């Protein structure tokens, strides 16, 4: 395996395992398996009380949106955590190429986000009796994976900001809340006020959730490729922005000797 690939795959996995301490079952089960189910139940019941959408609408929206928890928090921990462990100067002192160094940390996070969303989708659907066409299962899984990938791009931006902001967890929570409100998770984007819709369309998850909902409604995969393509493009844009911010903050930290200053 070439040096860059080793940094990408092995380095990324090691960093994820070492720094994302949420992998302990004592945190993983309540945070990744229990909490998303209750978010689904909360909004499904609010939706029933409001008489707005079907249960399926809320199950899909909230399950996929919950991928944001690992995508934001894990990315924040796997990069911002280096500073708390005082290993950031060592990492940035290595001659490792920066693209595999930073992006390699994102790969396990994408997998984590996908698994969380998929479990929430399956268990949430089972609890609420939501059914989707059998032929739509694989395309919905793909839409979920694309959404997790795209959200990890935003997670990289969050991680980069973690080099400047002291409370990465608080920042992650705020971004999570913004995604919950703006991405059409519980209120269709078309029903949001006009000024919110352009923001919704520029955020990850919005198009992925919409694609998954259309697939569950019986639309063929060909009918959502545009949405999934947009979701991927948005994710790539955030990924590029996050990488750029990481390099920028790295350079600024070297210049001002503030690498370890929170």
């Amino acid at each position, binding site marked *: 395996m070439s040096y860059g690939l080793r940094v990408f795959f092995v380095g990324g996995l090691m960093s994820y395992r070492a720094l994302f301490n949420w992998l302990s079952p*004592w945190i993983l089960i*309540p945070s990744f398996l229990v909490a998303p189910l209750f978010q689904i139940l909360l909004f499904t019941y*609010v939706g*029933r*009380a*409001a008489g707005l959408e079907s249960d399926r609408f809320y199950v899909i929206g909230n399950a996929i949106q919950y991928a944001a928890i690992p995508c934001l928090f894990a990315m924040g921990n796997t990069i911002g955590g280096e500073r708390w462990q005082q290993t950031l100067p060592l990492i940035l002192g290595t001659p490792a190429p920066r693209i595999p160094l930073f992006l390699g940390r994102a790969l396990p996070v994408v997998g984590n986000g996908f698994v969380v969303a998929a479990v929430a989708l399956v268990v949430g659907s089972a609890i609420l009796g939501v059914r989707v066409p059998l032929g739509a299962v694989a395309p919905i899984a793909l839409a979920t994976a694309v959404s997790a990938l795209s959200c990890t791009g935003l997670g990289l931006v969050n991680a980069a900001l973690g080099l400047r902001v002291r409370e990465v967890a*608080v920042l992650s*929570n705020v971004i999570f*809340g913004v995604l*919950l409100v703006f991405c059409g998770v519980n209120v269709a984007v078309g029903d949001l006020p006009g000024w919110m819709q352009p923001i919704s369309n520029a955020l990850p998850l919005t198009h992925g959730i919409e694609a998954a909902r259309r697939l569950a409604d019986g639309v063929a995969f060909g009918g959502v490729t545009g949405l999934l393509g947009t979701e991927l493009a948005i994710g790539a844009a955030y990924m590029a922005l996050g990488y750029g911010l990481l390099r920028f903050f790295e350079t600024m930290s070297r210049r001002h000797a503030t690498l370890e200053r929170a």
Partner: protein
Amino acid sequence: MRQALRLLGYGWALHFKILSRSAFDGFLGVLWPLFFATIAFFMFRTGGNSSALLYTSLGASVMGVWSSTSVAASSALQRERWAGMLELLAAAPVHFSLILMPITLAMSTVGIYSMTATLLWGRLLFGIQLHVQHLLLFALAIPVAILSIGMLGFLLSVTVVRYRTAWALGNALEYPVWLVCGFLVPLSLFPGWVRPISWALAPTWGIRAIREAALGGSPLPDLLVCAAIGLGYAAAGMLLVDTVLRSARSRATLSLT
């Protein structure tokens, strides 16, 4: 009794100040329930159910009180342990409950910021007017609800003391309590087996009292039940504290994480 009340008062004031120090945490504490309140307002407005907006606004305002309590209270002892204070607090010549209780009470009291912010948010952005039918009982229902939520936090903090990552459990308990206490949804929508769980939770009666006082009704019975359950939590927590402390002392595990 007087000394105990004095200790509770001083402890509450001290911890309220400590919790108010972090502007970033305070910002999140106010903002977090607003996300959920905003979604609920949008959902009810889009569903053409504008009459439910005040009902939702009142419920959403109490959500922040529970949010500020659940995660923080579940890790309250752990935080004292990390700060190296636990041994000193356990050795203080007063019942340990009198030290822990003001901490969780301060946590729930901090929720008053988000409560106010949510009501203002609903008024300014969604035009939800707050007309209170029984002003005195409304003013009484709020502190009683906050105190009882603080007591639930106290019981939670003692119950999960052996759980090393109790904050995760507290985090996971945020949505269930919002849900089953009927903060946003009437209890009548839930399956029958959920209702006894709701009735055992003081916030259910707290929010009912607040709503009855605001919307018109008879809040007094709900208020009394809320206070009684809160006292029950306090009594159960005090009994548990003794057991937990005795166990930690006999096994020399007080400072172990």
